[in-house]
């Protein structure tokens, strides 16, 4: 289930295609990675808590809460709410413990 849906298009109306967990997803250019996951990736969470394992989603959308941490192009713990999508960007939610174990 998506938490968000598209309402309005940004100026220019361009789009880019990202690799979201192995699937090509076309999203508006210049939107945040968090918005791409939650409005276009069909998801309602961006990570699992590495402590208790529950689903987590962004709380603040302004770089404070760090609930939006995702893996971008192989680099973990990136703040999805302040980073923009780029053509070909590989986005993966953090659903595993750092060691690779399923939570």
């Amino acid at each position, binding site marked *: *289930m998506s*938490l968000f*849906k598209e*309402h309005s298009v940004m*100026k220019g109306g361009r789009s880019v295609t990202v690799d979201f967990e192995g699937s090509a997803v076309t999203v508006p250019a210049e*939107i945040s990675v968090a918005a791409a996951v939650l*409005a276009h990736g069909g998801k*309602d969470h961006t990570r699992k808590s590495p402590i208790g394992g529950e689903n987590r989603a962004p709380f*603040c959308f302004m770089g404070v809460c760090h609930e939006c941490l995702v893996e971008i192009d192989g680099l973990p713990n990136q703040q999805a709410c302040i980073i923009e999508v780029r053509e070909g960007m590989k986005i993966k939610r953090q659903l595993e413990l750092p060691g690779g174990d399923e939570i």
Partner: protein
Amino acid sequence: MSSDTRHDIIIVGGGPAGLSAAITAAELGLKTLVLDEQPSPGGQLYRNIERVASATVKELGPDYAHGLALVDRFRKSGADYQDGAVVWNIEHDGTVSYSQRGRSSQIRAERVVVAIGATERPVPFAGWTLPGVMGAGAIDANFKSSGSVPAGPVVLCGSGPLLLLVIGHLSSLGVEIGAVLDTTPPGNTLSALSFLSGALRRCDYLLKGVGMLLQIRKSKIPYYKNVTAYKAHGGSCVEEVSFTVKGKEHRLATNMLLVHEGVVSRCDFSMLLGLKHLWEPVQRYWYPQTDRYGATKSESIYVAGDGAFVHGGVPAAVKGSLAVYDIAVKLGKRPQSENSDVIPRLQKELSAELAPRPFVDALYRPRKNLFAVDDDTVVCRCEEVTAGDIRQAVREGCSEPNEIKALTRCGMGPCQGRMCGSALAEITAGEQGLDTELLQPLNIRAPVRNLPLMELSEVELLENPES
């Protein structure tokens, strides 16, 4: 001497205060750099305004559209701008370290203006870690950055002018609002009345507020007043919210609960620098001690905008300019005498803007039991430390937030205490029957953002100016 003298002034933050500071600095001939962690200028209030379609800017109303002119003036000002620049350290000598697209750099200027604004006050409650529970202002920020809105009906909960603004935005955007749960304490109206004369000096603001309330009433959105004890319930996502009105429990189904409990200064850097902070007793938050220009006890460091004290976006812009006029004189780039006209004018403008503030602050004063959360409620979202864990630590002899952090890991996760710091202090004070202002807020240390060790090891350090 410093190896980097390209800029006279570095401004951290691209919101109203930072942009206004930059415009003024460039006009005064100072070499100016703005470091903004956002992808485009505007801060939170005017977030992404250059790229949001004109029709959408109109939908969000004049308070947002106001930012177009500011951003435009900034772009034409000649000030340098770095987007996606996440500052992770500021030092007393004006050295600023920041990460940009995976690489970290250091730069130095004679003066640094910290203009990092405010954030919604994080207040823990049962179920607040469930996906779908978010800040009300957060929803606004996300919309401006992406054009996306909540997929289904939302319930809004809390108190404060920003909550009304967000309700207005969501209504204009056609988002279905299931209910509004107003937690404003009933006694606030009476105590705010003593500040009414100030508010009447700015009838335009007062009428705007009344207009927003009337619009909500007219819209037939179910509106619950005197709400207490709200909780979010659900499995993998929020499904229901429960709350109490006059002793009666209510339950509403929703997949999105948007909460707002006021706005507080972001003190990341002023605290990192060890500057003195004061406690705002009405709205309950710490803010850095500055003079009327935003100068701190540290010669190189100024704080401007809501990060210095929460006054709102338009006053923040005035504060940004004030700081720079003072800096220009201090740097010998402008004779003191030239400030004698402009400073009183700006200060008059500021006080006119601030006239209604005591009324608004009293009207939306947080409820007394804001942090009286149940023991099993998670306070530190990152490390999953509960209110009970904090109270247990107090019973075991801890009296300060920093001790409790060391014992429980509360505030040690990726957000570095930004989400739990105020709750930790308030709960720790409450458990001891103390005023929160008597406690030391959590220590902040660099890097104030999470960085890969590899990036940290590859920073090109500036040479020490003393060496």
